[in-house]
């Protein structure tokens, strides 16, 4: 075969090599809205100490962040749920790596109630019945005779998926649930609605009341306090994750190491979550 026929492809190959080259000291972080305030605080504190490194943080939801990681448009993905096996398979297909998981903080996924609500505790089954539409009136749970107004997150949220998997056992949310764009919006809605119920990260629980949660009717009820979340007795304890496509190196590794240091973990506590260890 006469390879001279293919000379015209040489510039194309060279351009491909150059354009595929790795970028500079900018670290991009994308994903979980639950984690976005914490991630911004980390970035601000880190950039103040490391002027040569820029950390760009955006939310969009855990699912969006994981897609960005697979597509190569972010260095780090924040996720409030573990990566699914199908997502890991895509990462493996694209990069031949298994992905690298970092447990960056702990959270007690809280069930928000309005301050005026007299319900103190709920079982997981009761919460499931509310969110699947089986229980529609607070009276059925010992509260006032009023319709339950259900607030939740949108389906690109890791919290939405975690709640669906761990509380609803995979069942569909009720059609009437009002989907909010972020946890702050859920908190705001429940704070203004005496018949409202919502869920979200413990760090956002301001102006509302967190219900105590118990595994079943015979179990003790626990509030999402640091002690209960760290010991794991709170039924909706979860980790907040960071993922990279491969084992971190260079600037990304330094940034993650800093997040896991006492300095980075102190910010976790300041924001309202709990240290990973």
């Amino acid at each position: 075969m006469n390879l001279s026929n293919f000379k015209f492809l040489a510039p194309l190959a060279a351009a491909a090599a150059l354009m595929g080259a790795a970028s500079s000291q900018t670290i991009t972080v994308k994903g979980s809205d639950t984690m976005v305030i914490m991630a911004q605080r980390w970035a601000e504190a880190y950039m103040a100490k490391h002027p040569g490194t820029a950390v760009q943080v955006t939310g969009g939801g855990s699912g969006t962040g994981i897609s960005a990681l697979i597509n190569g448009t972010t260095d780090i993905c924040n996720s409030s749920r573990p990566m699914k096996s199908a997502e890991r398979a895509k990462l493996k297909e694209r990069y031949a790596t298994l992905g690298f998981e970092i447990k960056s903080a702990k959270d007690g996924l809280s069930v928000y109630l309005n301050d005026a609500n007299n319900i103190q505790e709920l079982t997981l089954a009761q919460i499931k019945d509310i969110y699947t539409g089986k229980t529609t009136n607070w009276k059925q749970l010992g509260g006032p005779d009023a319709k339950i107004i259900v607030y939740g997150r949108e389906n690109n949220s890791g919290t939405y998926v975690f709640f669906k998997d761990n509380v609803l056992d995979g069942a569909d949310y009720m059609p009437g649930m009002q989907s909010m764009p972020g946890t702050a919006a859920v908190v705001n809605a429940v704070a203004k609605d005496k018949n409202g119920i919502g869920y979200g990260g413990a760090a956002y629980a301001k102006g509302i009341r967190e219900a105590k949660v118990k595994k079943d009717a015979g179990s003790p009820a626990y509030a999402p306090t640091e002690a209960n979340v760290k010991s794991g007795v709170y039924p909706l304890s979860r980790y907040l994750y960071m993922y990279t496509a491969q084992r971190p190196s260079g600037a990304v590794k330094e940034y993650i190491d800093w997040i896991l240091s006492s300095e980075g973990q102190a910010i976790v506590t300041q924001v309202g979550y709990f240290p990973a260890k």
Partner: protein
Amino acid sequence: MNKMLLPIALAAFAGFASAEAPAADDAAQKEKLEAVEGKVDGLNESYLETKTTVAGLAKLKIGGFVQFQYALASDTNLSGGYSQKQGAWAMRRARIKFTYDAGNGAQFVWQPNFLETKFETKDAYFQYTEQWLKSIWVKGGIQDIPFGFEIGNSSSGMELIERSRYENNSVFNGEKTLGLVAGYTPSELPINLKIGWLNGQPQQAVTGDWSATQDPKNFVGRVGFTTAFNELGLSVDGGASYFYDSKVLTDTAKGGTYTQFRNDSMVKITSSFRNDLKTGILGLDLQSTYEIPGLGGFKLLGEYYMGKIVGQPGGIKLYTGAALSTAEIRNTLGYNITGVLNPVQFLPKLQLVYRYDYFDPNTDVDGNGIIKAKGFSAADIAYTTNTIGLNWFVNGNLKVSLFYDIVSNETTTDAALNGAGGKTPGTAAYTAAYVAKNDLSGNIDDNILTVRAQVAF
């Protein structure tokens, strides 16, 4: 006196009037508030209705891809009638996949493949996953043959731009089949299992004694394992598959006539033994990934096929003829090994690929033994293909690939077989140019360079 009382009377009236005004304002405001509340309720109702519709639409996921390419062959004609060294543009694949997740473990999939003048269905199936363990599922309809690793890989996600020669030239060509497949994929255990009961070749009209025992079905199964050592950045997956193929003679006579390798020839055999047409293919596959520290991810894929195939005359592709009396039976062998390097640490958008691929459609005869007078044809020639390639992931949607296939064929000195397309020596079609491009006494120069762009969404 009256003059003195007037201001008082006016003041009293004013006091009365001012007492009446708030009441009127309250009523008006209440009315307005009720009107606004009514509007809000109406909007809320409308919002919930819209939300239900949107939630329903959100269950439908649409994805797809288009592959457009330019291929340049060295000496052998490209498919589609384009002559040597001319090169050819081609729309290699254009697919849209519709996936509807109905909830409660039920899913429906339809994937058409668009051709220049028509479209064909690549996938059309339902899948149901039981909701207790969520590890057992069934799939019914047109779907991937549950064999090996390569077949189940999406054409858009593969590292190579084309599948292996064994897959492309055997009963697995096209990768799809019609049937029912059940699977067990537990998340807690490192094993998985797939079993398929598939339609074989279309049933033909049958008379005579055969009709009572016909069973033109294929049974396929794969037992797989998957392991990951996250600390080491290593994963090893693999599996063993078996494809059982049962065909029936469709001659009106009790015995069918077909061609099979016997001794040193492909000979016609008249047989009344239906068992002769039960054949099978064994497959072994292994996939390993390893993250090379400081460099990136490396993937090693290997696949092995071995078995007897009943094919239509001139090959071992899926038999679609009207009668198996013209079938050919061969013992076949194929294997390939692929290395993929993703230098994520330095060139995160690039992927380097190499594949060694061997395919022998008839293991019972080699080289100079492939003689036309003994019933053999170009369909008995073995091929080795070395492929080197580069994938450039421009962004999340666009991938540009540059691949070069170096193809080597088994050779035979039989002059009658040379001119393998079937042109007869001495005829006008058997020209010197034709022989040069089909001369199986040496390696036919059929290397090919392909540049492909894939846009996926």
